[in-house]
């Protein structure tokens, strides 16, 4: 009898290995985030404050996450591998957790490039911003994975995901931007942590209903 953690690790390793072989998500996310930052440079007039750029960094992060999330369940849908996953003798929530880990890994890798690029193009990032990004990534990956699974079951697919995701991403943006721009970011980081915990619990508990009938 395999443990829950082993199931999650096996499934997450499968997703990462698929990406390593096909390389179709991460390069797209990296290019997208750099392109978005360049676009933002031209969107900000000369006398815009540094704080405005910080806000745009968060826009870039959320939309880059969306690029990754739209790809998250493509194989499950197009090759019908979801049927295989559902037949696997593991808890269904392990599928969500493993996919979330893979999404999180892509997002973190994209940000490892995006944050230095932001520092280069605009202004330096402080510790609070990095902590905010780390906490926000957890929430984005958790909620985003569940919504991506929902969207992959609909006819509208890629079109639907941003509509489902953006209203739920507003609190993440508030927490992240707040942590980046105020002097004492504790409250905002706490709020991001609260968001992560609350939505991780309901996503974890409800994923099984999304993928089964």
């Amino acid at each position, binding site marked *: 009898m395999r443990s829950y953690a082993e199931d999650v690790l096996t499934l997450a390793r499968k997703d990462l290995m698929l990406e390593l072989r096909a390389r179709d998500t991460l390069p797209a996310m990296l290019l997208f985030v750099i392109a978005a930052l360049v676009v933002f440079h031209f969107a900000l007039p000369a006398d815009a404050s540094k704080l405005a750029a910080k806000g745009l960094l968060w826009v870039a992060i959320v939309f880059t996450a969306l690029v990754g999330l739209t790809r998250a369940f493509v194989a499950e849908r197009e090759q019908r591998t979801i049927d295989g996953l559902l037949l696997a003798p593991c808890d269904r929530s392990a599928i969500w957790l493993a996919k979330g880990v893979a999404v999180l890994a892509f997002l973190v890798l994209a940000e490892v490039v995006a944050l230095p690029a932001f520092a280069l193009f605009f202004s330096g990032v402080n510790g609070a911003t990095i902590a905010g990004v780390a906490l926000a990534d957890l929430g984005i990956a958790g909620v985003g994975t*569940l919504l991506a699974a*929902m*969207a992959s*079951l*609909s*006819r*509208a697919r890629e079109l*639907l995901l941003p*509509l*489902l995701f*953006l*209203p*739920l991403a*507003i*609190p993440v943006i*508030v*927490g992240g*931007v*707040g942590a980046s*721009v*105020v002097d004492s970011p504790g*409250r*905002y980081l706490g*709020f991001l942590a*609260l*968001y992560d915990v*609350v*939505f991780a619990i*309901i996503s974890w508990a*409800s994923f099984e*209903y*999304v993928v*089964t*009938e």
Partner: protein
Amino acid sequence: MLATTLVSASIALIFFYAPVDQDGLNQKIFYFHVPIAFTAYACFGWGAWKAFVHLWKRPPGADLESYVAIHQGVIFGAMTLITGSIWAKISWGRWWVWSSHQLVLFLVLFLFYAAYFMLRFSVEPGPQRENLCAVYAIFGVVLIPISYLAIRLAQDYIHPVTFSRHGPQMAGSQFATFCVALAGMVALAGFLYRLELAGKRLDQRLRELREALA
């Protein structure tokens, strides 16, 4: 019948009984706006409860009830946005104020529940759609307090100065009027909910009969 009585009673009370306070007649919209907003919350809450019951015990029809409740919630939510916007125009001279937490929250909720309909009508009817909608509806009620908190927090770095909507405490007669108005709105929403539900059920039954004949 109850809804008609209560709504007409509340209109009568609002215009003939409740005293005119220092804001003048403008303040009357308070008796519409706030009860409509409460009713919208109640509809979303009821929809999420029915969604939860659906996932829990799977009674037939809970999915439809959840959908109809959320549909009513969106209608009342849109009315909250409209009445709130009118109030903002009268009180602060602008149609939209980001510093009114309730209005911003309703905008977020409106976007969220509009996506609910997109989701619902983009999935083939069946057990899977019922589950997806139920999970999304439950996300909605969790999003309400989280968003409210987020909007409060965002205030600190977007608008340091906030308008205060709560001037003096409500007088007894104002409070009584408010309660009747609230009861009227809830009764109205309940009536519309039952009406729409009856219509949808008839529709479903008709389709079943037609399929049986074909």
